[in-house]
């Protein structure tokens, strides 16, 4: 009566490993391109993809039930809640607290 987790094939594991190594190379490579703010986005997307690969195959999420999958993303979702709300504060007040942002609605961002 062990847990009925299908045993993964060697080929599946090794190809995921290879994909991860290639993606690591890619993310380093892309970081040398001049993409402006997109560098962050691309790097994070690749990281997210790599993390999903590890979770999906290595950590066996692909064979898990819905509850485990829910728990798997719950932490990430909560982290996003924390970041989103905190950032909403920072972006709407600016770093240096401006004494009267309402009295010069246009002066700040006219570039």
């Amino acid at each position: 009566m062990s847990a009925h987790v299908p045993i993964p094939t060697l080929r599946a594991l090794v190809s995921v490993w290879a994909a991860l190594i290639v993606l690591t190379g890619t993310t380093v490579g892309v970081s040398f391109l001049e993409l402006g703010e997109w560098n962050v986005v691309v790097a994070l997307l690749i990281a997210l993809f790599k993390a999903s690969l590890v979770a999906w195959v290595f950590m066996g999420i692909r064979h898990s039930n819905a509850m485990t999958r829910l728990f798997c993303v719950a932490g990430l979702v909560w982290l996003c809640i924390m970041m989103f709300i905190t950032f909403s504060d920072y972006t709407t007040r600016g770093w240096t607290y401006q004494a009267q942002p309402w009295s010069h609605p246009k002066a700040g961002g006219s570039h």
Partner: protein
Amino acid sequence: MLARLLFLADLELFPPAASAQAGPIDDLYWFEVIVSAIMTVLIFAAIVLFAWKYRRRPGVEAVQIEGSTPLELTWSILPFLVMLVMFGWGAQLYFAAQQPPKDAMEIFVTGKQWMWKIQYPDGNREIDELHVPVGQPVKLTMASEDVIHSFSIPAFRIRHDVVPGHYDSVWFTPTKPGRYHLFCTEYCGNQHAGMIGWVTVMDQRAYNNWASGGGSQGTLAEQGEKLFQQFGCATCHLLDQQGRCPVLRDLYNKPVQLSDGRTVLADDAYLRESILEPNAKIVRGFEPNVMPNFRGQVSEENVIQLIGYIKSLSPQTPASQQGSQQPPVVLAPPGTPAKASPKPKPAPGR
């Protein structure tokens, strides 16, 4: 009996309302008190009624009731609608509390363990005492030298944290002459309870007398100018021609182009940052690392004086909006400091 005892103890149960803000906030407060009281009475009454009426009696069994979705929805949605009123009302007052009128008189407050230092544009300085003329909107620009303080005048129903590293601001229009408490309401260390001061609201004439009475060391701008010389700022910030550093004349409240392409407004917060950490935002066309960091070299009060001086270098800004915001008080000689009347925003409430 109790009432007499309270009377004898000269007990206040409600604070005086001495600012234009106090009335509207009290109105909301009483609205909330009444709603809460009604809810409390209803729930208490229901508990007492049910507990008594359905008390355990021999032979009487409880009637099993599952629940009722319509009822649940009713008592979820109805209270929420009432709460929406509180929200909207509160948010509107909060929004107004963040917008000082353009003719507000500007006073500077520095919190420091454990005192409030007050600086007036005409150069007067006080500790733990704030004098304001009745009917004149006052905007406080506040800074902290050390930890977080919170500036609170209960009689005015105003309060704002004074967070180090920022300028915080709060404004009010005093309406009743008198002396009122000024508290620090954010725990700031040992003598937190000692950070109590007084606000004195005086009529305009008394205020003028008071303002001219102090042995002033010159206006805020003059004090700032002294510091400007003392720190040697003038060697690089030349008044009328380009030096190694930007010209400060006509700078205040103007947009400034930075070397990284951004544009910022040269307001109090920007000027403060540029004094304390000059490299944070470099003006286009200038080199970084020319000016030393003044963090730790000048106190927040000095910064306020320096900003006062810089402001005085931009006496009449042509842009009408900014011009009207420019408080003329800054340059007015002592004795005729404030524009007492006409207020663009008549004090609401009482």
